[in-house]
């Protein structure tokens, strides 16, 4: 606890004012509105709304389209988190083994961090689009009817690849830092005991990386849930059919395209509950912070 402080009484409020004002206007007020709206239903002309309690939630949770979005989101997030973390961990382990060129590799690895998710998606669609994508061309030559614009599974593969590609850099940096924090004495002891590298990795290195892995698991899940909206919107628009419609995309689509406010608000509230659960999970088990920017 700090013992010495400045005695001013008004100044701290002035310093806090900008952040509090923005927080109240753009966070608490809208979040409150989302809660209010999730319990209202508007008439066909949007003129009058009536209180309907939890009816919107019942409607949303009973809607096959919403359940489809839940499933799509679960598959998408699990694949993105798994691949982005596995590839990053593998590369970080390789980077630990090399002596020369570490900095060089790192510089090239961090590029995708700076690429907007929407642009990442467009790049991948450009490379893999069925009519003139350079990388789709060999697939066609091999006789695969590759068409992410018409085939739901292909579309899912494409958005997962783009989302994974974008997230590898971030995970790589954290795994490298995690590996460097492992006490050298442990590894030396293992080497003296004649442990094979594979054995030492699974029994010493990987368990010691658990905090990093857990932290990244939550960050990657949040990333896959929310930040990938741009990829879905720019690449597939939730389609073909509803094969890539994630929860966030559906909130946007119902609220801004189909203009069903009550449903959209109820979905927002459900998403808020998911974020709160994830954050609580992270605090409970890892006691680390989440970054939303």
């Amino acid at each position, binding site marked *: 606890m*700090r013992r*010495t402080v*400045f005695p001013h*009484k008004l100044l*701290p409020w002035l*310093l806090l004012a900008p952040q*509090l004002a*923005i927080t109240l*206007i753009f*966070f*608490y*007020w*809208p*979040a*409150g509105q989302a809660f209010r709206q999730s319990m209202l239903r508007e008439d066909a002309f949007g003129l009058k709304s009536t209180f309907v309690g939890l009816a919107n939630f019942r409607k949303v949770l009973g809607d096959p389209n919403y359940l489809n979005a839940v499933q799509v989101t679960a598959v998408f997030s699990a694949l993105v988190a798994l691949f982005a973390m596995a590839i990053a961990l593998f*590369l970080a382990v*390789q*980077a*630990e083994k*090399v*002596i020369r*060129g570490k900095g060089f*590799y790192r510089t090239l690895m961090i*590029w*995708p961090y700076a*690429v*907007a*998710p*929407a*642009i990442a998606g467009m*790049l991948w*669609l*450009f490379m893999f689009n069925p*009519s*003139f994508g*350079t990388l789709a*061309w060999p697939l066609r030559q091999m006789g695969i009817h590759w068409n992410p614009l018409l085939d739901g599974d292909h579309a899912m593969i494409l958005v997962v690849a783009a989302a994974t*590609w974008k997230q590898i*850099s971030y995970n790589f940096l*954290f795994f490298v830092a995690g*590996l460097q924090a492992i006490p*050298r004495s442990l590894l030396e002891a*293992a*080497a003296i005991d004649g442990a094979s*590298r594979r054995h030492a990795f699974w029994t010493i290195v990987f368990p010691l990386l658990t905090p990093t892995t857990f*932290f990244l698991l939550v960050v990657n899940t949040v990333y896959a849930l929310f930040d990938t909206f741009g990829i879905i*919107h*720019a690449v597939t628009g939730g389609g073909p059919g509803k094969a890539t419609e994630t929860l*966030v995309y559906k*909130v946007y689509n119902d*609220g*801004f395209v189909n203009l069903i406010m009550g449903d959209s*608000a109820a979905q927002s509230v459900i998403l*808020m509950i998911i*974020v709160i659960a994830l954050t609580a999970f992270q605090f409970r088990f890892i006691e680390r*912070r*989440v*970054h*939303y*920017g």
Partner: protein
Amino acid sequence: MAEASPLAPRGAGRLVAHFWMVLGVIVVAFPVYYVFIASTHSTQTILRPPLPLLPGAEAAQNYSDAFSGGISRIGGVSLWRLLANTTIVAMGIALGKIAISMASAYAIVFFRFPLRMACFWLIFITLMLPVEVRIQPTYKVMVDLGLIDTYPGLILPLIASATATLLFRQFFMTIPDELLEAARVDGAGPWRFFRDILWPLSLTNVAAIFVIQFIYGWTQYLWPLLVTNSNDMNTIVIALKKMISFADADTPWNLVMVTSVLAILPPILVVVLMQRWFVKGLVETEK
């Protein structure tokens, strides 16, 4: 950094590691390289796969066309305008976040006042309200305040950051009491103490947060998509989305590629040039 881990392989094993790293780097960097190559070819070449792996001869033509506003699908807005918009938004978000987070962290750490911890929690809880979960009502607030198609509309809702506030608070708490005591004995007020002592000590943190938030601002998608209607106010990412259509035959792919390069390059430069602070800041602040 240069020393290998005790379990590091020698000879062939190390070569294998290099092989995997090179392969990883190729996969990671290839899409960016590929866009750059595509931006130097004509649309006809782009539409006839496979694309050559070396730059073509159309670079000068493509770049001058794109910069002079030759893209009709986004209303002929020039790339300069798009880049200016995006820079204003990214800088506004990064600098704004740093300013208001530092101010509030300073208030919470170096002053004592009623409801101090309540304020802290009020800010802290916003971690759990990313813009995606409150888009509809936040949009309505923007309409009511008349902020659609304005820079404040693009910047303000994204400027409050619990992360930056928490980071500065954490850092300020490591400043020893003796430093503040000494400053106060010498008659320094809150402003002098901040300017002469705290700010110089915070520079590394400020640089790291700047990079992270600049990237955050530059890569925004959902929010700019909602609050901009006019082509003049688009960020480059949104403009890019508007000019691409995979169904249409008349997408000017060469100009799309130029726009992509310019949408990607500035943030990559920021990350690569400020790598030292960025990597340290990212890994330390988020753990």
